[in-house]
């Protein structure tokens, strides 16, 4: 149970650092940044710290990783040692290096996918809500139809048709996710388009694009950002599920979802190896959601005032 202890210790350390940083930020910053630092709950500062660490690791992967991403540097499944702090994987690549590069690939791909899904889904959703009428009906019914097809199976179908390059993976998952974003964006925008300021802008003779961009979008940001956080995490999970079904990210690219899948049989024997990439995913998910919760809380809090 040394492993469990070290995990708990690690999390506690992260919380402690987050607490220290927040205290530091409160002392150093002034103005808006300071009030932000005052406002922030410990969970959210923990989340921000984790996200910052991930971002740093993703960017600095080549510097941090002791070995190249794909190089076979030892025997298979070597134990943890000084040379390979987390051992080696099934064909003898350094686990730690793969984890570090995995941050870059997994987070990068998930981010690109989510961003794309949001650009497409949000614009269409806001547009449908703004214009209404048959356009709204047509788009909504079409999206309903797509949503009625299970996401995983639909992605599977599309990936089989278009192949599994990183680009198609991003496009397919983004397409599937965009339907969900569409629904949310439309629902949020429906609450906004009835506001007087939208009527005022329409009376002024503004075009749809201006209305979407300047009048609706800024007010729909809060729920969309919150959804972004959740979707971001779901994309991870979707990619790892697809890996499980044999259609995820291409090897030998290191990606956490595939790494969990590749080593999944080891779980049967209580081996912790698959836990590492899974833990990386879980930690980021929780961190992102902590931040999202905080943002949502702030957004709703500001509204009440």
């Amino acid at each position, binding site marked *: 149970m040394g492993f469990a202890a070290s995990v708990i210790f690690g999390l506690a350390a992260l919380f402690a650092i987050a607490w220290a940083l927040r205290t530091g930020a409160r002392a150093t910053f002034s103005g808006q940044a300071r009030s932000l630092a005052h406002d922030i709950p410990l969970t959210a500062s923990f989340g921000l710290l984790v996200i910052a660490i991930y971002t740093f690791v993703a960017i600095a992967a080549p510097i941090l990783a002791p070995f190249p991403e*794909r*190089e*076979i540097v030892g*025997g*298979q*499944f070597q134990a943890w040692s000084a040379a390979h702090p987390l051992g080696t994987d*099934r*064909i*003898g690549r350094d686990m730690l290096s793969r984890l570090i590069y995995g941050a870059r690939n997994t987070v990068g791909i998930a981010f690109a996918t989510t961003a794309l899904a949001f650009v497409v889904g949000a614009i269409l959703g806001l547009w449908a809500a703004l214009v209404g009428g048959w356009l709204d009906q047509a788009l909504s019914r079409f999206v309903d139809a797509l949503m009625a097809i299970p996401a995983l199976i639909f992605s599977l179908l599309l*990936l*089989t048709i278009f*192949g*599994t390059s990183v680009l198609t993976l991003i496009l397919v998952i983004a397409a599937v996710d965009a339907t969900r974003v569409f629904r949310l964006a439309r629902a949020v925008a429906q609450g906004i388009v009835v506001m007087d300021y939208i009527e005022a802008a329409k009376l002024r003779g503004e075009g749809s694009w201006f209305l979407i961009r300047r009048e609706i979008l800024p007010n729909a940001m809060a729920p969309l950002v919150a959804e972004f956080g959740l979707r971001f995490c779901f994309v991870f999970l979707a990619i790892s599920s697809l890996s*499980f*079904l*044999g*259609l995820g990210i*291409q*090897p*030998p690219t290191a990606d956490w979802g595939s790494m969990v899948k590749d*080593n*999944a*049989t*080891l*779980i*049967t*024997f209580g*081996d912790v190896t698959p836990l590492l990439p899974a833990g990386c995913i879980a930690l980021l998910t929780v961190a992102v959601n902590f931040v999202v919760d905080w943002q949502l809380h702030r957004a709703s809090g500001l509204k009440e005032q």
Partner: protein
Amino acid sequence: MNNFDMTGKTFAPSRRGVLKGAAAIGAAGLILPHTTTSAAAQTRGGTFRIGIGHGSTTDSLDPGLWEHLYVQTFGSARHNYLIEVGADGQLVPEIAESWSSSDGQTWVFPIRQGVSFHSGKPVTAADVVASINHHRGDDSTSVVKPLLAAITDVRADGNNVVVTLEAPNGDLPYLMTDYHVPVLPSADGKVDANTTDGCGGYIVESYEHGVQATLNRNPNYWKSDRAWFDRIELVSILDPAARLNALITGEVDLIDQVDPATIGMLESRGVARILSIPGNAHYGFPMDSRQAPYSDNNVRLALKYALDRQAMVDVILGGHGAVANDNPIGPANRYFHAEMEAKTYDPDKARYYLQQAGLSSLDVTISVADAAFSGAVDAGAMFSETARAAGINMSVDRVPNDGYWSNVWLNPNGNTPFCATYWGGRAVEDHMFTTAYAAGADWNESFWSNDRFNELLVTARSEVNEDLRREMYHEMQQLVSFEGSTIIPMYNNYVMAVANKIATPEQISANWNFDGFRCVERWSMA
């Protein structure tokens, strides 16, 4: 996912055991029936539950469409064949009491009397004729139709079945062991391809396609020293981890395709043992020799020296296999060429051959999917890693398992000239070469065409001098290995894990997995 796996591709069976029979046409009938085999150690009773990494709702009962271990094992449990391949590789008469031919062209199979189907209907020569004809004719959709194309006529003559061929062929008895050709009950000269009725050791109780099948011992089974278990349960478990878990928790007693990575840990649990049966099955990477840069043999050689075969055996097969020297003919073959210069991982040599090809570096893409063979993707990654040191920049394109054999293999779209492949071994050199290396063969996956090789292939068939013949086959192996366009790094064993409560015979057939699919009737409770 494993249901996209097509590892159970159809191949004609290995002919490892036909050595004797092929050498002595007409004498095979002298082989003693199994009744003489000692069965002292075996006990009756118990339920044998098998977890198999194949099976799908779309599985067909039609033997002409069988293609993977689940339906193969299920078929062997409920059906009998004219001839069986024994655990030692020898042909054993089953529904045919013996076989004989005076000229190699007309074959006579006397049908065993007193055997009946589960329905009670006696097995007759007419049933056998209909069973064979199911795979023949214009409207047959059977996978083995090409294999049986040389048969011009099948007819019943009293209790005999008479098969006539286009031309003499001593291999016919061997063809009759093919798992696609069980003896089915017939009516009006036609078989009902979708029946579960058979004359095998177990009677089907229930079958849910892609899920499970349960069978009970046939009380009227004509073999007294077979079918020890009272009950057989076949469960389709596609997920490797789930299969392992099922074995560990005692839900099943036998599983196939054990992940090499977990073999050590599984053995240390002490609940099951690993059976690793060497055969001639092999994994490979064919290159389309019509297409640049693979059209240059120097490039092909460079690639052949750019992979670490031993590491692949260790990692991909977990040691359960042997290094191969780009040779589809295995050590178990009669004319296996063991003295060929072994190719080892040698980046310098690879570089040298690249220079010979006039290249300083090489960019290639290998298309792999675990559908080709389990671990193919990892193997691709390993290959790519070792190739880099030789100045070969190999990118690994993981293609979907789904549709691998129709879209990737054989380079149908011209964009997958370099991929992965898997072959069950062929016992007879000629069969292997003719199937996959002869110019213009349907399954010549590398589109390799070598005049000398093709010439030798034809002459060797009719060569009677054993030494000359050996020489010819050695030369052919040399040609395939050093000029051929298929990289074959390893022979893979059949790896299965069996619970300790199941007793297995000393000799386990290397002719197909699961003891030639016959584990259901050859094995017993410990």
